[in-house]
Structures are given as C-alpha cells and as structure tokens.
C-alpha cells in the first residue's frame, strides 16, 4: 500500500467451487459490499452473493411494449389520419397488415432495451475500475476466480478481513488500490 486509498482486499481462488464457498462464507460472516469475478458465469453465485436483480426483464418488457405501441400508432397515423390512400380498396385501418411492422418493431425495441439496459445497469462502458489494479486480476478473464471485499464495507478492517480471507484457503490475498 503506497499512499493510494484502499479499494478493498482481493483473494484469488483456483476453481469455481472454492469461489462459491468463499462468497457464501463471507456473506455469512456479515460482509455486504463484496463481489466475485470469474471467467464464465456461475449459476450458484447468484444465490451465494444473494443477487436479486429483477430490473432487466422489466426494462425489456417496457422496451417491447413501447416499440409495439409506437409502431402500431405510426401505421395508424400514417395510413388513416395523415395520408389516407386507397390501395386496392383495402380499409385505411388495415389492422392485419399493420401486425408485421408492429411485431418487428416490438422485437427491435425489446432487443435494444435488453442490450443497452444490461450495459447501463452494469455500468458499462467503464474505462477505469480499481479491481484492475490487483496485479493478477488479468487472470479473471482466463482461469482464476477472485473474491473482493470492499473497504467501504461496514465490517471491513484491513487486518481482520485479511485474516478472514486467508482462512478461506485462497492462493493469494492482495490489496486493491483505488
């Protein structure tokens, strides 16, 4: 630690089982501000870290509803109100024909909401994040598993947390600077 503020402590594990168990133990010990980093999604992590995020499906649903309603409104407004055109005697309000643009736009907006909603909720793009200061963190995208307890955690105490993390049997524990 050289002058810079401390972001947290990070422990490195060799396999996903160790990471899930460590995350569970840390939560049971009362830590609340912690995160796990892994090279692929681990389903058990959501339960181990008590992640309950149900915002994204709602965002996608709203995107889809907006896209569908807007597209139908566009078809209706163009074909009935602003530019009523008799095409082969079809009614101005040709509901069955409007289904296709409505359906496609529903999908388009729901998909846009899914992608940009996921990125926004995850706070991406993020050009800088302190965890990358951990010297071996580049391995989190290859073959190692990391658990980080933040210094902001109310239960955080450098030496005690260090001892706690060491007890979980990691390969190494390291300081992460802001």
């Amino acid at each position, binding site marked *: 630690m050289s002058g810079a503020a401390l972001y947290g402590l990070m422990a490195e594990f060799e396999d996903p089982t160790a990471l899930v168990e460590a995350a569970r133990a840390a939560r049971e010990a009362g830590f609340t501000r912690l995160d796990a980093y892994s*090279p692929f999604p*681990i389903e058990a992590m959501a339960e181990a870290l008590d992640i309950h995020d149900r915002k994204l*499906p709602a965002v996608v649903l709203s995107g889809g509803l907006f896209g569908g309603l807007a597209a139908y409104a*566009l078809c209706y407004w163009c*074909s009935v109100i602003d530019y009523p055109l008799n095409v082969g005697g079809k009614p101005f309000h040709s509901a069955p024909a409007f289904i296709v643009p409505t359906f496609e*736009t529903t999908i388009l907006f729901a998909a846009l909401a*899914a*992608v940009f909603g996921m*990125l926004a909720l995850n706070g991406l793009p993020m050009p800088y994040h302190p*965890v990358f200061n951990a010297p071996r963190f580049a391995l989190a995208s290859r073959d190692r598993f990391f658990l980080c307890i933040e210094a902001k955690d109310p239960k955080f105490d450098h030496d005690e947390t260090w001892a706690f993390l060491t007890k979980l049997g990691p390969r190494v524990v390291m300081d992460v600077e802001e």
Partner: protein
Amino acid sequence: MSDTPREPRSGEPPATRSSAILAPGYTFTTLTDKLASIVLSRRTPKAWFFGAAVGFALTMVLLGALGYLLVKGIGIWGVNEPVGWGFEIVNFVWWIGIGHAGTLISAILLLLRQPWRSSINRFAEAMTIFAVACASLYPAFHTGRPWLDYWLLPYPNTMGMWPNFRSPLIWDVFAVSTYATVSLLFWYVGMIPDLATLRDRAKKLWARLLYGTLAMGWRGSARHWHRYETASLLLAGLATPLVVSVHTVVSFDFAAGIVPGWHATIFPPYFVAGAIYAGFAMVLTLAIPLRKMYGLEDFITLKHLDNMAKILLATGLIVGYGYMVEAFMAFYSGNPYERFMMWNRMHGPYKNMYWVLLFCNLVAPQALWFRQVRRSIPALFCMAMIVNVGMWLERYVIVVVSLSRDFLPSSWGMYKGTIFDWATFIGSIGLFIALLFLFIRLLPMISIFEMRAILPEAKVREAEE
C-alpha cells in the same frame, strides 16, 4: 480433470472422440490460451492469405459491377418484362436464408440448452450478419436509385408522403433491418467477455486498445454475469420469433402476389424450413475448412458435424414436403393456371433447373440417413455444397419460372442473367468471404467463455449438502 494439457490432436483413435463435444484434457488455461492465440499470437496460416485474397479479389468484382450499375442503371441486368425479379431477388432470398442458421444455433439451441452449440455459435452468428449484409445489397440496388433508399423508411418529409404499410415490401424493410440490428447486437454482446479475455492477453498496443475499447471495461463481476445471462436469455427469446418472422415476411413478398407459383399458403413454413436448411448447409461449408485450417478438431468435433447433418436431413425433409404439397395443391386446386405452372416447371424451358433442384434438395440429402456419410468429412462437405446449389435453384425456380409464364401467353418471356448479374452474385460471395476472413483473423471465432463453462472443472461441487 488432469492439469497436464493433452497434446491436442495426438493420434487418438477416432472412436474415443467421436461422441464428445470437446476433446478431453483441456483446462481453463489451455482452452483460453489455445482459442485466444488464434487471434493474438499464432502465425496466420497460409490458407488464410489465400482465402482472404480470393475474397477481396471477388469483392473488387462486386464493386466494379455495382459501380457500372450506378453509371448505366439496372438495364445492364437481365430483368425486364415479364421477369422483373431476377437474380436480385433470388440472391436476396438465398442470402437471407443462409443467415437463419446462425440465429437458430445461437438463439433456439440456447433456449433448448444444447451445450454443443457453444463452439459453433459465434461464427454462425457472424455468418448471419455477413449474409444479411450481402442480402440487403440486392434490394438496395434493385430500387434503381439506391441513394434514395431512405424513402423506404417512415420519416416526415416535404413530399408529405408515407410508406404503404399494407405492402409486403415495406414489411421486408422492417423485418430485415430489425433482423440485421438484433443479430449484430446479439453477436456483439456475446463477444464482450471474450473481448475482455483478448484485452487481458494482448501484448501489442493496437490489440490492447482495440479489444480494450470493444470490451468496454468488462471485468467478469458476478453481478454483471447475472444480468448478462438474463440479457442473453431474453435476446434468445426475442430472436427466436424474429428469425421465424423474417423468412415468413420474405415469403409474403411472393405469397401476397397473385402469380401462380407464388400464391400459396404453404410458403411461410416452407420458406422458414428452407432457410434453416440452406443455413446449416452454409455452416457446414464454413466449419469444415475452418476447423482444418486452424486445427480446431478438438472443439468442432465429429459430434458437431453429425448433429448439423441431422438438422440438415430433418429440415431437408420439411422442404421436400413443401415441394410435394406445392405440386399436389397445384393439381388438386383444379385451377388451370396453377396446373400449368406446375407442368411448366417440370416440362417447360427451365425444367432442368427444377429437376436438378429436386435432386439436390430432396434426393441427395437422403444419404445423410447413413452414419458413415454423416461422419465422413468429404462426403458432408459435398452434401453441403449440393444443398447450397439446390437452395439457390429453388429460389430461381420460384422467382423466374413463375414470372416467365403467367396467365397470358402473349406476355410470356424468357429470362437469363447477364454477365453483370453473375458478377454481382459472385462478387457478393466474395464480400461474404472477405468479411468472414477478416472476422476470423480479428475476433474470437469460438466463444471462449461458453467453452470454459462446458469444461468438467466448471461444475460447482456442492460439498456441504
């Protein structure tokens, strides 16, 4: 789960590897390094330079053909009365159809939890995007004034006009542009974790900048993964009905017309099946040389090829059913024009195309019932090429043969593609090859993180329960 990386492709008997979706002996480390090295550190194989050169040369042919088209107008193509839709629509439908397998692999097989898709989904999705890019060239230039193509979009304009939302051609604009956008998003989102891997593994400055920017600061946080997985599932759920709708809408371009040979209710399902059929043929056409070129036999195993061959066979049977229903309905309808249309297909001036198409799409693929054929790489590659040709002929028969002889014999006429039609078609294949070769050189063509997740060591063992 041994830690010693097995020498890949050592002379193991094929029997032990033929049913696995990943060769044994890989760990997170060796798997990541092998797949990342294709982009980052391995010497580019000679075959790559050859393929890229062919692709770029043919792209020049495309640019030349389109440049001349812009100068002279679409009179240089063979389209005229009565066949106003020639190569351009044939190729549009052919390319769009090819794209469908990518979405099927990445979305439908994801929802069905088929882990074997992991090694083929990425380049199949890339194939989708490049195929849609090639496809959209055709209608864009077929309008004759491509610089006014934005008139297709509903936007407030000084002419005070709006598109006719009752027209299948406008539906096409919505369907294809949505399909292109969603496929691109799906592909990019699926690549973010792998781009982070490349960012962390890259040594050269340009590579770190490129992949670092594209990875957007991905750090593999559990909270991020959670939302990422939700987003992937939702995107897959959205892409599934989308892919079915796209070729349905393309089939409406025909089915909503009154021309005999187009006006059939079987068209939507028959087109969707045909699209998947053509798409899997193209995936096989690409996968077989790629796995050889980059030594990816451990990841794209015989099991993958076998599964794809089975899908090819199944969709081929659906397409065959479509052909039979078309012929039967033409006869059963009692409508003389429908009957004549079918007679004309079988015995008219384009009869050779019809019979070759039936051979390619209906007869030849029956060989895939045999395991020896499905597991023989040269046989499978030939089969895929036969289906590629057959599906192009199918669209040719539907578009050209129907239009060339409609209700009134005095308005009949023959169609033949000109040299510019052929140059544009071959050039678009070149564009496809060029884009694909750029992709395999610059981006991870196999999803690294999804491959990690199917390793045995990725399983979380529940100790305390």
